[in-house]
């Protein structure tokens, strides 16, 4: 009665590649999952259990829930909140974040030291991560569309410069970048990051460009005949066709920005993000609660778990097929 769909399985014959690579990849997978699982288990241990086990040389034990004595097993995760105590003495408010005085075209900006609250750090992280990614992807996709579909000389020049910028590294430009950002009052500002990151001179431009170049002009022509404006054609017809790619690149860029601490450290020291705060506490403060190993790994899990959850739900989008056309002479 019910016809079973029989999937035709492609028979894979063993060859040298499978025999060598498969075990290697299995070992590699183990070396990734095991430390992450270990770090998570360690973050659930009490300090007493961890240091007792360490003294006995037992680093690979499971957390003992009974030792928490009524407290939540996730108590170490609340330690990160103690990095941002407010309303208490200055020395107990966590780490200072400082910026020197500098000149701008609008006048002098004085040196400043701040003690951010947890909400300020969360706001900085979300506005930096989401805002920078949206601006970047929109900027890159729009520029690629314009250059692919509007064959003026300027389009060719832009594409040339994009490839030149990707393939020609200019070292030591960060000092000049800081100087320019300060001058324009974009230093220490999250909107400064939006503007600085809104560039098309990246690999993603080539990906978008290749896509739009291969997109048939028939859609544009048909829409023009029907009376659609150029803006309408761009956003209602062509961009939706690239939506899979746009979402994939958005997610990849979002993940990069979430994990990025180097940019915050260099260009906005007064707007610390979560990654920046955790790194600073791990490295610079012997009195920080993150010196305790279970707390340290709890803080790291706070950084990793949101991205892992995003990855689990959007795995297919994040790993969607995107192809790079390569640099043609």
């Amino acid at each position: 009665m019910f016809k079973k769909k029989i999937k035709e399985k492609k028979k894979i014959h063993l060859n040298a590649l499978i025999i060598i690579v498969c075990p290697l990849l299995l070992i590699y997978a183990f070396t990734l999952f095991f430390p992450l699982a270990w770090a998570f288990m360690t973050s659930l241990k009490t300090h007493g259990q961890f240091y007792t086990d360490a003294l006995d040389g037992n680093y690979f034990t499971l957390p003992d829930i009974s030792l928490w004595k009524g407290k939540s097993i996730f108590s170490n995760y609340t330690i990160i909140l103690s990095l941002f105590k407010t309303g208490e003495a200055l020395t107990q408010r966590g780490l200072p974040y400082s910026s020197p005085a500098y000149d701008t075209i609008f006048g002098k900006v004085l040196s400043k030291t701040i003690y951010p609250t947890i909400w300020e750090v969360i706001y900085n992280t979300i506005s930096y991560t989401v805002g920078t990614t949206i601006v970047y992807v929109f900027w890159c996709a729009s520029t690629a569309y314009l250059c692919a579909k509007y064959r003026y000389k300027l389009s060719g020049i832009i594409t040339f410069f994009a490839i030149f910028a990707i393939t020609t590294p200019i070292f030591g430009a960060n000092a000049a970048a800081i100087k320019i950002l300060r001058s324009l009052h974009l230093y220490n500002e999250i909107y400064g990051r939006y503007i600085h990151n809104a560039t098309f001179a990246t690999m993603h431009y080539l990906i978008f460009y290749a896509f739009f170049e291969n997109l048939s002009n028939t859609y544009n022509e048909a829409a023009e005949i029907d009376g659609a404006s150029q803006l309408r054609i761009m956003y209602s017809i062509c961009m939706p066709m690239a939506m899979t790619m746009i979402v994939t690149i958005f997610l990849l860029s979002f993940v990069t920005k979430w994990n990025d601490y180097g940019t915050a450290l260099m260009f906005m020291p007064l707007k610390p993000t979560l990654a920046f705060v955790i790194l600073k506490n791990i490295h610079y403060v012997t009195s920080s609660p993150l010196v305790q190993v279970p707390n340290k790994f709890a803080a790291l899990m706070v950084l990793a778990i949101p991205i892992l959850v995003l990855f689990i739900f959007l795995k297919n989008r994040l790993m969607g097929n995107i192809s790079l056309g390569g640099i043609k002479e």
Partner: protein
Amino acid sequence: MSNVDIVLEKPIKKTISRSKKRFIFYSLMIALPVIQFCIFYLYLNFEAFTLGFQKYTRTSTGKFVAEFSLDNFPKILGIIFNGDNIHWFTNSFVAFAFHTGGGMILSLTFSYYIYKKYHFAEFFRVVLFLPGIISSIVWTTIFSYFADTIYSAVSGSKLGLMENPDTALGSLVFFVVWIGFGANILLYSGAMSSINESIVESASLDGANFFQEFIHITFPMIFNTFTTFLITGLSTLFTQELSLYNFFGMNAPESVRTIGYYLYIQTLESDVWLNEAAVRRGRLTFSELSAFGLIITGITLPIIYSVKYLCKKFGPSVE
């Protein structure tokens, strides 16, 4: 005047031609990206170039005045060719050789395995992507703990792998290769997936094994993508930090430092003008850092363009 005369006298509306509409739209939309590029690429690199030839002095009123100077270059050349610092270059080359060179070979191999959909290919695709999505701070902290504390406890050694000067560099290089996959696999396997199936099938019918198929079909077809990654990998020759800032902050041991790490930590504490205390600590000004960058760029650019030329001349042909 009759109604017919009034209608006939109405002026004819001039409409903008289609090509003009396209040009106006294009001009308005492309203006902002072009302005941003002009400021944050063209002017920024011009500023980086001119900064290398400037020296800032502080006047009695506290203002900073820039003047033309070639003094930055002898100072930087003195730092680079100082016998105590030559290991920065060797460390950078070692890191590049393993991370870019070794990493590319592994990326191609694993991408090919995934492209051929062999055993557990989908699972491995997820696994290989994992290092790229989790913060490097997480990986470095976990690796550091395993390499030092747990290794010392298990092996009985007094020093961990990262603490021992003999094994520190090797451990760091292993680390960057270990987590260095991810996006490359995605793009390589994307490029391999776009190869025409009929070409692969006809090769298979002709009796080509997996290796012959890779050498004669797959690799030539993805050579453009490979060249792109090779060129961008070469760009990291002197920016590779070996994640030293994640591991050690500002105080990485001298024996493992690279040019990229040195430039990074200098930039964090640099400014247009530095007081005597900062200069005595070995800090460089923005001008000196720009001069450093110019020298490094002068070394790297010929290498990149030579490699690009060699790839174009001797690379496999798709035909």
